[in-house]
């Protein structure tokens, strides 16, 4: 007694063939993966963030300590060619402010022996960072694939040079040297 209308051989062939053919493949959908690592650029004063000077008219007063500047970056060398560290005073005419007189930035000198000004240089340059006549390029490093992520530490020596200054009245003088890094 076979199935009506189907020969027994044909039915057997359907039953045997059905498992191998019972699959369906859809089209291919694409999931695009995008990850972005943001460029980073930071600077910290590891030590020497407070410096003292004993001023002496007609002489040079060295800072009591050197400021250790640690600069870290992670940048894309395809977009960034150079990292530069600058020091600047917000108001160059009053780098150090006193009660009756201010000491301008041209009497404050900086040196980074591992950086750009290897000899003492007045903080009186005009750079992309800081006001005109009130900054100093401290470090400049070209970015390649090798150093695209890096941390470096440089010591900044400071001194107040009053050898050619007008008489500075006795008293206390205070100021803030700002350190900022630019990558471009």
């Amino acid at each position, binding site marked *: 007694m076979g199935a009506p209308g189907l020969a027994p051989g044909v039915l057997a062939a359907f039953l045997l063939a059905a498992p191998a053919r019972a699959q369906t493949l859809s089209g291919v959908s694409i999931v695009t993966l995008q990850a972005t690592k943001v460029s980073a650029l930071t600077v910290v004063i590891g030590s020497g963030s407070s410096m003292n000077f004993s001023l002496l008219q007609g002489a040079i007063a060295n800072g009591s300590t050197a400021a250790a500047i640690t600069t870290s970056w992670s940048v894309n060398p395809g977009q960034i060619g150079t990292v530069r560290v600058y020091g600047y005073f917000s108001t160059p005419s009053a780098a150090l402010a006193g009660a009756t007189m201010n000491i301008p930035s041209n009497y404050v000198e900086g040196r980074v022996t591992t950086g750009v000004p290897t000899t003492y240089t007045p903080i009186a340059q005009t750079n992309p960072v800081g006001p005109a006549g009130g900054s100093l390029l401290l470090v400049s490093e070209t970015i390649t694939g090798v150093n695209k992520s890096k941390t470096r530490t440089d010591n900044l020596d400071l001194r107040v040079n009053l050898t050619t200054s007008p008489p500075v009245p006795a008293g*206390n003088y205070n100021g803030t040297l700002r350190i900022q890094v630019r990558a471009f």
Partner: protein
Amino acid sequence: MKLRTTVRVAVALVVAGFGVAGSAEAQLLSNIANVNLNANAAQTLTVSVTSGSTVNFALTQGAAAAGDVSPAISTSWNLNPGLTGAVSLFGYFNTPSAALTDGVYDIASTYVQGRMTTGAVATFTSFTQTNAVGPANGSLLLFTEAVTGANKIKTRSDNLDLQIDLTASPTVPASTYTGTLRIQARAL
């Protein structure tokens, strides 16, 4: 056709230019780290004898012998008028009883007189005052200048005239007498 080609080239150059400019403008700025600077200019007060640091006298009993030169005294200061009210200059002998001596006989400071016409002693006055500087009865105030904002930094020069007046002294033996007059400024 030629115009279209020119336009296409121009557009391509402009696009390329934007692309180049975009790369050049990529820049990052870090945070700002501060270095605090503290400086102190100490008060200063100095005195020097710029000329006439050796004065000779030809002594004559019963008379006043003027020094052959007047020492020029330069006094410089850098003072805070909020802390210091005046600068005074003094001359004194360490041992008033022996302002000058030959090792045997001493001439006392009573017979040594000074005058500073630009200072506090307009006429010759003996070095027998008692002041804040020098021993008792052995000094002379030469000048006093009040310190204000106008003269908190100053250098002044004054001539000190000296004489040895033996008009009323006991007889001074013939000899060579030497001594040292010390000059010191005081700010208070």
